[in-house]
């Protein structure tokens, strides 16, 4: 009788796990090392020192940065959780008409790169934005300031609200509607019932969503760079960008120590988050009920609520994105010239005739599709090793796979930059698109790993054990029994990574090379150069491509993101 070669499975497990560990260590070890060196990592004769940290902590700019970042993250996360929770309640628990339409529009920002949203907000709500101009005409003043911490927090909140919405929705749907009914029976109106029963029951989920978006806000890049930097409000990411990329003589020691401090802070937040998560899970499972909850009737308020919802989505999502589209079709957007006199296709012609533009869009798409697929494949492999094997280093692997959560994109990019400098023989990967795929994979390892882990754990271990006893080794078992059953989860992970990779660009700032530019960076440069037309035209192309992919995946392939 012949059995499979017994050595194969350990080889796969060891190589998968080692690859993951090396990939995560590659950027982080040189980064940590650099933070203790008195000169750039590539220069010889360097000495170990704590001066970088001393310089950092005595740098008044960094003090401001810390204060700004926390203020911003606090505002952004509370606002996004508020929006997400309110939307989740109205969409899931009331008889609001057209709820699916509102839900879909509300979720749009999840699929749209932040940089595009920010463009839209500047065009609409900037000091001379279109809506700002109307405010000026009718009221003589503009009651908001986009280039401020609250302004940035608002943009960030609207962009982050979909995730809070998804998280709250699952709790809202699970919430026992009989509690609400009891409140109604006791004489409370529908709004009172929501306010005094539904909302308090959501509290643990809200808290968790808040911590989630808090860390998200600390890592944000587009908003601080486009809205904060021009008026001198620095945040962690823009501080590192300014010190590491824009300085005449970048102080890599300072950047590295700053990066380490951010990583430490975010790790702290994640520990808190994890504590909360275990509590939330307990909370949710106790009340887990599969019945569809009853919907609250809005009654006479219905038209008003519909009107408000429509107005809100119009002002916060549809109009800003519309402004991006409009800007892409005009040469100049000025209140002194009617825009229809300025209509042009030049911006789009610019994409076709300028190789950097179209190559960067192509690269972003290529990284999203091919890189997303490769990354999904790799993450499935390590999730199977970490979650579904007797591999001795499992615990370490699981820890490592989740670690990059604490590392904002720009820092991962900087770490890889340092890593490639330390190991020059890998330089040839760096200057290609494969280098970017590697960086993106490491950055988004936790997301993909988490997304695939839960479904893996849901499949009974008896499925693969049955293969093992029947004579297959570990690899045969996961291949024949686990992977086929994971198909929906695999597709959803792929789509998730595809969307994230399309949006990602701050991880590429430090390491892209001629030919491997990605759309986000090129758009950012165009915007800084004042070429808003080209930047918005590229945004529109990217929006259309993303929309096509998402619609195709969800309608034709029936894939669910966040399944």
């Amino acid at each position, binding site marked *: 009788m012949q059995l499979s070669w017994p050595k194969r499975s350990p080889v796969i497990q060891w190589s998968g796990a080692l690859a993951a560990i090396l990939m995560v260590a590659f950027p982080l070890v040189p980064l940590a090392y650099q933070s203790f060196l008195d000169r750039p990592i*590539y220069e010889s004769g360097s000495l170990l020192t704590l001066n970088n940290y001393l310089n950092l902590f005595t740098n008044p700019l960094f003090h401001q940065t810390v204060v700004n970042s926390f203020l911003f993250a606090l505002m952004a996360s509370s606002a996004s959780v508020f929006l997400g929770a309110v939307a989740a309640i109205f969409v899931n628990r009331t008889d609001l008409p057209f709820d699916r339409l509102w839900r879909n529009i509300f979720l749009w920002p999840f699929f749209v790169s932040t940089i595009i949203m920010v463009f839209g907000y500047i065009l609409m709500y900037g000091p001379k934005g279109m809506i700002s101009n109307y405010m000026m005409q009718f009221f003589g003043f503009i009651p908001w300031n986009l280039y401020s911490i609250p302004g940035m927090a608002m943009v960030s909140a609207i962009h982050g609200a979909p995730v809070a919405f998804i998280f709250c929705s699952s709790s809202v749907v699970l919430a026992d509607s009989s509690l609400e009914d009891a409140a109604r029976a006791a004489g409370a109106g529908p709004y009172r019932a929501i306010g005094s029963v539904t909302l308090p029951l959501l509290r643990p989920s809200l808290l968790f969503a808040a911590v989630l978006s808090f860390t998200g806000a600390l890592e944000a890049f587009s908003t601080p760079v486009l809205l904060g930097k021009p008026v001198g409000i620095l945040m962690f990411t823009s501080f590192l960008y300014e010190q590491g990329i824009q300085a005449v003589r970048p102080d890599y020691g300072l950047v590295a120590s700053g990066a380490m401090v951010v990583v430490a802070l975010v790790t702290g937040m994640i520990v808190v988050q994890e504590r909360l998560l275990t509590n939330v899970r307990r909370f949710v499972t106790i009340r887990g009920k599969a019945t569809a909850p009853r919907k609250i009737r809005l009654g006479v308020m219905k038209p008003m609520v519909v009107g408000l919802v429509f107005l809100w989505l119009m002002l916060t999502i549809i109009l800003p994105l519309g402004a991006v589209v409009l800007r892409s079709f005009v040469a100049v957007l000025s209140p002194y010239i009617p825009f229809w006199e300025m209509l042009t296709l030049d911006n789009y012609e610019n994409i076709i005739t300028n190789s950097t533009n179209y190559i960067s869009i192509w690269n972003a798409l290529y990284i999203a599709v091919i890189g997303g697929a490769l990354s999904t494949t790799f993450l499935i492999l390590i999730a199977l090793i970490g979650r579904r094997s007797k591999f001795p280093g499992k615990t370490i692997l699981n820890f490592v796979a989740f670690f990059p959560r604490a590392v904002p994109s720009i820092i991962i990019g900087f770490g890889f930059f340092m890593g490639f400098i330390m190991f020059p023989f890998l330089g040839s990967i760096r200057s290609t698109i494969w280098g970017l795929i590697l960086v993106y994979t490491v950055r988004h390892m936790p997301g993909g790993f988490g997304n695939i882990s839960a479904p893996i754990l849901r499949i009974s271990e008896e499925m693969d054990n049955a293969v093992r006893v029947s004579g297959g080794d570990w690899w045969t078992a996961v291949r024949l029994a686990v992977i086929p059953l994971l198909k929906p989860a695999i597709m959803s992970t792929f789509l998730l990574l595809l969307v994230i990779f399309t949006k990602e660009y701050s991880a590429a700032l430090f390491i892209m090379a001629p030919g491997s530019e990605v759309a986000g960076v*090129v758009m950012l440069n165009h915007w800084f150069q*004042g070429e808003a037309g080209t930047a918005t035209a590229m945004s529109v192309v990217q929006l259309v491509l993303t929309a096509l992919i998402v619609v195709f995946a969800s309608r034709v392939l029936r894939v669910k993101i966040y399944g």
Partner: protein
Amino acid sequence: MSQQKKASKLIFVLLVVAFLWTPALAVAVPNYYPKDYDKIIDASRAEKGLYIYSNVSTDNWKPLLAVFNKLYPWINVKLLDLGGSEVLPRYIAESQTGTPTADFLVTQSAPGWARLLGENRLLRYPSPEIPHLPVWASRQETVYSFSADPAIMAWNTKIFPADMVPKGMADFAEKVQKKPDFFRGRLTSYNEGAFGGYSAFGFYKHHGEKFWNWLDIIGPMTRPGSSGGDQLEKMLSGEYMMSWNFSAINLASSTAKRAGNLIGWKYTEDGNPVLVRGMGITIKAANPNSAKLLLDLLLSQEGQVALSKGNMTVYRPDAADKIPEPTLHLAGLIKAIGEKNMIVVGWDPEYGDEAKFKALQARWRQAVFGKK
């Protein structure tokens, strides 16, 4: 095999050989180039293309690279568009470790170039074009001037009245002092980072302490911007009325052209800074010969004309009458305000002095933001 077939085969081989040789023979370089210039051309054929890091966008490069590709079709040019201060540190970091890096650098950063020269990180190459260029076109036959962009005044004609347009900085300070509320928050300029800092350096060298007196008046009314394009957008939208430190190349952008009369501009009559953008071949260049060919083309008459088509302001005297846009050649400026009022911010070692520049930036911030 028949005689005829042999003959046709021979002809074929000859044609192939001829075809392969033709480009080498056909490259038409100016007649004053050295006899052995062909050696550089031949050597470039064995190279693997040309890597450029620059702060010049691909759009601006396009007309020049079209000419370059026509001359040397075998050289595959790869461009990386980076921020102005990003170009040189990136090359230094990469060259230090042997990772693949750029052959050719273009950026505005006087101290950066000074550092590269001092640390011997650039390839010395005496271009055959040097005799045809102004003295400030090169330093130590290593760093060359890519373009020379004037920092001009520009405004939104709908909101900035013609009678308020200043003649020069002295007049400007006087006008602002008379009507501060009219100007408050509606003026813009480059910030002190690179372009703005160097034009201020130029103003200061030209006017001396008077410049700081003026800036103490103008500065508080000003909201500096990061790029010319950004200033232009905001002038068009009416957020700003006028920029007193605006790179002329933006006037040739498609946005400015479409805006037509909405944007007015003039040179600063009592002294107009001209910012030299540097270029050089890296000492670690993997493709030095290709880089030399590009450098020579950029300095040649043909190259300067092509570069101006990409909206860069060029300076080679004998190219002036071949360029229709007066703003895209320095001759326009000299004609308008005279050579004595042209402040070339270039290879004077003072500009490369980092400490001096930092002090100047601090003084600038003090004038504009009221704090260092």
